[in-house]
Every structure is written in structure tokens, then in C-alpha cells.
């Protein structure tokens, strides 16, 4: 940093919006793994089986590459990296529309446990298990829950993502946060729009499980988990949108109609160029969210809301354009465009709707609604 910037009046916190070399190495490792083991055709083959999760994929990603422990300090059994690296993993998982409990377990549940782990041995023990990729835990709240939203504290909870593959459920109750072994809970699968992120209705017996945090600590812990989830979901959406654009560019360069590539029609060129512009914004927003979470910036809630409000719509539009610019083939089950479309549409609802994130922004920057 130069003297000039140091002496300048601090306004917004400075964010690092680029990718480091380590982050690019991590990306390359994850991309190679997914290309090898979980291509779209493999995913298409799995989504209608009992479990869409690619068998044997979790361990190499979570444990061998160490992706599950990125958010966890080394002394708690993790990699001591940050949200920036986890965001890169999610970009890749988004590109490949991979069914894996990374966002739910390695981000939301893991982040939720970070504060309680300082107080409770049980929480610290579970956190280390998650960080090592040996255990999968999910927070038992509906996938649609926004950071700061009221939590369901009793009764069955529907719409819990990745509960089907979880070993442990983190259950917020009136008297604290509980870890309930999945074996002691009832997990009933629901039929999701996005077959790559299974949803289930979860019922746990009142008082079952181990208490990890008291009532005062539960709200903040869960809010923190959901905030990290929402912020890093933007990276998943970014990766997904990038794949949609790349695939559409590739296809329209090859597909000939009227004796020329359809991508040579300006009507289509401009559509793809516009998407690229949107992606420039989405990448900046997603990086900003990851960096602000990594540095624990006070601005994080605002930047996360901005990233969500923006990236959700970019991902949906990219996937919709991908279908449209493929023509009839884009409407078929055998083409993977629908995997991206369904994921993008579900992501738009996941971790808070656009309207909710806009409301959060309005409150944080003092743009009050009309009275």
C-alpha cells in the first residue's frame, strides 16, 4: 500500500477482490476432481436414484483436498484458511452442479459451531469432525431461511437441505443448540425442484441430542452460520452462471442454422455479451462477500445481502438464457442445462429471498420504505 492510500480518509473497508495463487491452485484441484468423478452426465445418472450424491466423492474433496476444514482454525482441527478459499470451492461445485453437502455442512453448520466451540467441548469435538470431513452435519432449518430470520424452535422442520446425507443434525431449540445424531431423528425425503440438493422433513424428539450452546448463544451462532452460507452461496451462483455462459457460447459457436453458426447472429451475441457483463458484477459481488466474511468486516451483513440480491438473479438469468439459446435440446432431460436451471431457481429462494435481502440492505443503509 502507498502512503497516499494510507493517509486517505477511510470510507468503505478495502476489500481484496482478486484470487490468490493458493486459491487458484485449490480451484484447479477441485475442478480436476469434479471433472474426473462428477461430470454432468454422472450427475444426470444419479439424480433419480435413492441418493444423488456421487459415491466416494466426499472424502477426496472434504478430507484429502481438505475443503471441509477451510473455515476452521488449525488448532480446532481445520485448515486455518478462510471464506475466500471456501468460496472458490463453491464456485467449482456451482459450475458442476455437484450434489454434495458442502454449503450445508462445511459452511453453514461449520460456521454455526465456530463460536460455541470456544465454550463447549462437545461443540469443539463435532467441529473437528466436520473439519476433517469425517462427519456431515446440517442445520435443521428450512433451506429458505435468511440470516436473521426467525427460527423454527419446535416441531418437525421441512425443507432441510442435505439432511438425507447428514450424520448429525444441528437443532436450534428454545433452550439452546443441540446436536442430534441422524440415527435418532426421523428424516423423510421431500421431492425437490433441484434434484441435486435433496430436501427432507426432519423430526427430532424434544430434548434429544447433546446441547452445544445455551439459549443466548444459539441465535447469534445460527445467524452467523446463515450469514456465511448466504455470502458463499453467491460464489456457487457465480460458478453456475459462468458454466451456463461458457456452455452457451460453446454451443452457439458450433450449432449451425441458416448456413452459419447461430452464435454469429447479433441478437444472440448481444445476449451473451450482456450475460458476461452481469458476470463481471457477480464476480465482484461474490468476491466481496467472501472477503468481508473472511476479514470479519462489520460491513459483511450488507455486502452479503448485496451479493445475494445480485447473484441470485444473474444465476437464474444465465440458466434461463442457457436453455433458450440451446433451442429444443435445452428443453430435454438428457442435456444438463436443466440441472443448472433448477439449481439456480432454488438458490434464488435459498438462504433468503431477493426481497428479504433488499429489505436488509434498506435497513442497513437507511433507505427506509415509504410509510
Amino acid at each position, binding site marked *: 500500500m502507498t502512503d497516499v492510500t494510507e493517509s486517505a480518509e477511510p470510507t468503505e473497508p478495502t476489500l481484496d477482490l482478486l484470487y490468490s495463487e493458493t486459491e487458484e491452485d485449490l480451484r484447479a484441484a477441485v475442478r480436476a476432481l469434479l471433472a474426473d468423478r462428477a461430470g454432468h452426465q454422472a450427475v444426470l445418472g444419479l439424480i433419480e436414484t435413492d441418493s444423488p450424491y456421487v459415491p466416494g466423492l466426499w472424502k477426496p474433496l472434504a478430507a484429502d483436498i481438505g475443503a471441509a476444514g477451510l473455515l476452521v482454525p488449525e488448532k480446532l482441527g481445520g485448515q486455518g484458511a478462510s471464506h475466500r478459499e471456501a468460496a472458490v470451492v463453491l464456485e467449482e461445485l456451482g459450475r458442476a452442479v455437484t450434489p454434495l453437502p458442502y454449503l450445508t455442512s462445511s459452511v453453514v453448520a461449520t460456521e454455526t459451531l465456530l463460536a460455541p466451540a470456544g465454550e463447549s467441548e462437545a461443540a469443539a469435538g463435532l467441529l473437528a469432525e466436520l473439519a476433517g470431513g469425517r462427519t456431515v452435519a446440517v442445520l435443521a432449518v428450512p433451506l429458505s431461511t435468511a440470516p436473521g430470520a426467525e427460527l423454527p424452535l419446535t416441531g418437525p422442520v421441512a*425443507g432441510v437441505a442435505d439432511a438425507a446425507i447428514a450424520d448429525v443434525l444441528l437443532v436450534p431449540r428454545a433452550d439452546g443448540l443441540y446436536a442430534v445424531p441422524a440415527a435418532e431423528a426421523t428424516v423423510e425425503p421431500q421431492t425437490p425442484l433441484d434434484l441435486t440438493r435433496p430436501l427432507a422433513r426432519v423430526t427430532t424428539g424434544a430434548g434429544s441430542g447433546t446441547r452445544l450452546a445455551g439459549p443466548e448463544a444459539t441465535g447469534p451462532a445460527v445467524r452467523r452460520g446463515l450469514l456465511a452460507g448466504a455470502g458463499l452461496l453467491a460464489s456457487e451462483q457465480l460458478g453456475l452462471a459462468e458454466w451456463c455462459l461458457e456452455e452457451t457460447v460453446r454451443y452457439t459457436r458450433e450449432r449451425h442454422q*441458416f448456413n452459419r453458426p447461430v452464435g454469429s447472429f447479433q441478437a444472440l451475441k448481444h445476449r451473451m455479451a450482456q450475460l458476461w457483463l452481469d458476470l463481471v458484477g457477480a464476480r465482484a459481488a461474490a468476491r466481496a462477500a467472501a472477503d468481508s466474511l473472511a476479514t470479519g468486516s462489520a460491513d459483511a451483513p450488507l455486502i452479503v445481502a448485496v451479493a445475494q440480491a445480485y447473484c441470485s438473479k444473474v444465476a437464474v438469468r444465465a440458466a434461463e438464457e442457457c436453455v433458450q439459446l440451446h433451442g429444443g435440446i435445452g428443453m*430435454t432431460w438428457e442435456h444438463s442445462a436443466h440441472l443448472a436451471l433448477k439449481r439456480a431457481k432454488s438458490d434464488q429462494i435459498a438462504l433468503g429471498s431477493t426481497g428479504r435481502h433488499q429489505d436488509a440492505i434498506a435497513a442497513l443503509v437507511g433507505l427506509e420504505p415509504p410509510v
Partner: protein
Amino acid sequence: MTGAEELRALTRKLLDAYPPATTDRTDFLRARFDAGLAWVHYPAGLGGLDAPRALQAVVDAELAAAGAPDNDPRKIGIGLGMAAPTVLAHGSDEVKRRFLRPLWVGEEVWCQLFSEPGAGSDLAALATRAVRGDAGDWIVDGQKVWTSSAHTARWAILIARTDPDAPKHRGITYFVCDMTDPGVEVRPLRQITGEAEFNEVFLTGVRIPDAHRLGDIGDGWRVAQTTLMNERVSIGGSRIPREGGMIGKVAATWRERPELRTHDLHRRLLDHWVDAEVARLAGERLRQQLVAGRPGPEGSAMKLAFARLNQAISGLEVELLGDEGLLYGEWEMRRPELVDFTGRDAGYRYLRSKGNSIEGGTSEVLLNIVAERVLGLPPEPRNDKDVAWKDLAR
């Protein structure tokens, strides 16, 4: 010319002679056709009375009030919307008499064998070949794709290449193809909704009598224009009440589920509501203009608006439903008998509506048509129009 009063009287006479409550559905529909009350603007003897098209509403209202059965247009949309007007405009008397009645009654389902793997937007590039056989009939070989209802169809409208040496638009001939011919093989193609509404159709040595040719040899592209213009009107051109179609679904959810409402969604809902109402009025105005019953390029405007609105509204509905929007009815692979854009759940509607801007001509191609034929803008330079089809790159 038959006036409204006369039509009303004829409709009552039909209802007296064939009381809906005690008449078999098919018998009733056949009698309605024979009375000229099927489509009153069609010629007498072919289900109509040469009456103004607008008067159909008089007949329909009388019949609906009497609880008469209808011909379930959702199952026979391609027959009613595309095959019938083409057969009427280009078929011989014999062909019209043979096909129109069972088509309208719904005894025979039709499908459209137009698109091919290599010929979608550029339909005129099609490669399916029809060759004259010794007996004067035609022998057809090729592959069609995205064929909706091929699995329920008895007949197909088919375009095939009869002269590969001519430029692509000039070597095409239009046929009626028997879907029960042993050379016709129909394989389901599954859609993003989970269903297989459309199919791949393989044609191997399919025999078509020359009597089932519509229009002259080599004039099939012109005949196909009748089909395509009507297709665009039939997708999105139907008359609906206020809040009919997709907007009605989300409006109902909004009214019934106050807990789902947010300011953001409210504004967006009202935007769509206004657009849907204006699209409805534009359709109404278009119909009033079409006194002569000849759809022009304006029909494309309706289909464009229909596709855009269906997609935006169903997308909003999924968002509105939130937790429920994350769910889907069922993914089970089925081969549906009918096409229903507004059926099933919001997720289905959202996914199915994606096809609305592709089927029957993509929105991009329709915008080109508006730009070139309506606005008169110069066309894109083309290098494929005057070259013999066989010399085009494929």
C-alpha cells in the same frame, strides 16, 4: 351469411335433437360437426356454415350453457390449430372430407413432423427425403425430432425434401403421413419437466399415397407457411378472460396466502398483472382486426408476449411460494396425453413455460420476423437461399 340469431336457433335445434345429458359424447360432437356448428367460419359440409368467425362465440356460449361436451382442444391442439387450416387451404375435396371431421371430433389426433436435428429455426434446411415410388406413391426416409403428441397421433402433417437440386425453400413437398405405417418409429424424448411430451420420430420407407399430398410438388414451403402462421396464433392466441392463464394462478395464491406476501413481490406481481391484462386486450384487438380470418405476422406478437409473460409469472410464483417453491410434484417419466401450460404445480409451470419461447418458432426468430416483415427492416445478408440444397454445408 348466417347471422347470430340463425346460429342460436341452429344450436338449440342441435341441443333438442341430441340432448347432451343422454347423448354419447362422440355422437354429439359428430352431430355438431354435421350441423356446421364445429367452426362456423369453415365451409358448409366441412363443419361450418361460411359464417363470420366471430360468431363462433354465440354457438359456444349456447352450448356451454346447456352443458354440452366439447372436443377437449388440449388433446388435439395440433390438429385443430395447425393441420385443419392447412388441410382446408390446400387439401383436395376428398382430403378435406376424409380428415376434418374425425380431426375436429377428436377421434384422430394429429402431430407435426416438421423439425429435424439439423433443421429447427432453419426449417427449410430439412433433410428427410420423399422419393416417388413405382406405384406413384411416395417413400419417405429421415428423422424428425421434438414431435409433440407423436405417441398419441393417428396422422401427421409432414414436410420432406423432394428435390435436393433446388434451393432449399423450393424442393420441399407437404404430406399427410399415416402414423400407423410400419416404417414410423416413435421414441419418447424426456423434457426438463420429467415428462416426455415430445418424441423423436424415425421414418424408414414410409409409404404415402399421392392423394395425401397437400399442394403441388415442390410447393411445400408455401403450404407450410399456412401451418406456421396458424401455429403462432394457436400458441398464445386463445381468448381468455381477465386473469385467465398463468396470471390467474399466481393471483389466486396471492389472495389465498397472505403470509407469503412481501413488498418486493407485490410490485412485481402488479407489473406482471398489468402486462398480462394488456396482452389480453391486445389479443382481443387482434381478433377484432382479423375479421377475414387470415392471421398475419401480428400473430407473432401474441406468441412473443405469451412466452415472456408465462415465464416471468411462473418464475415469480415459484419465488412467492418460497419453501413450497423449492419442491416439485413428481419427476416420474410419463407420456402425457395432453399439453397443459398452466397445469400441475408452480415448478412444473415454470419449467414447461421455458418451452414457450422455443416451440412454434423461437422468440428470437419471431423477433426477426417482426423486424423484417412488419417493420420492413432489411434482412440479414444470406448465403443459403439460392444455393441448391444438396450443396449447402451440413
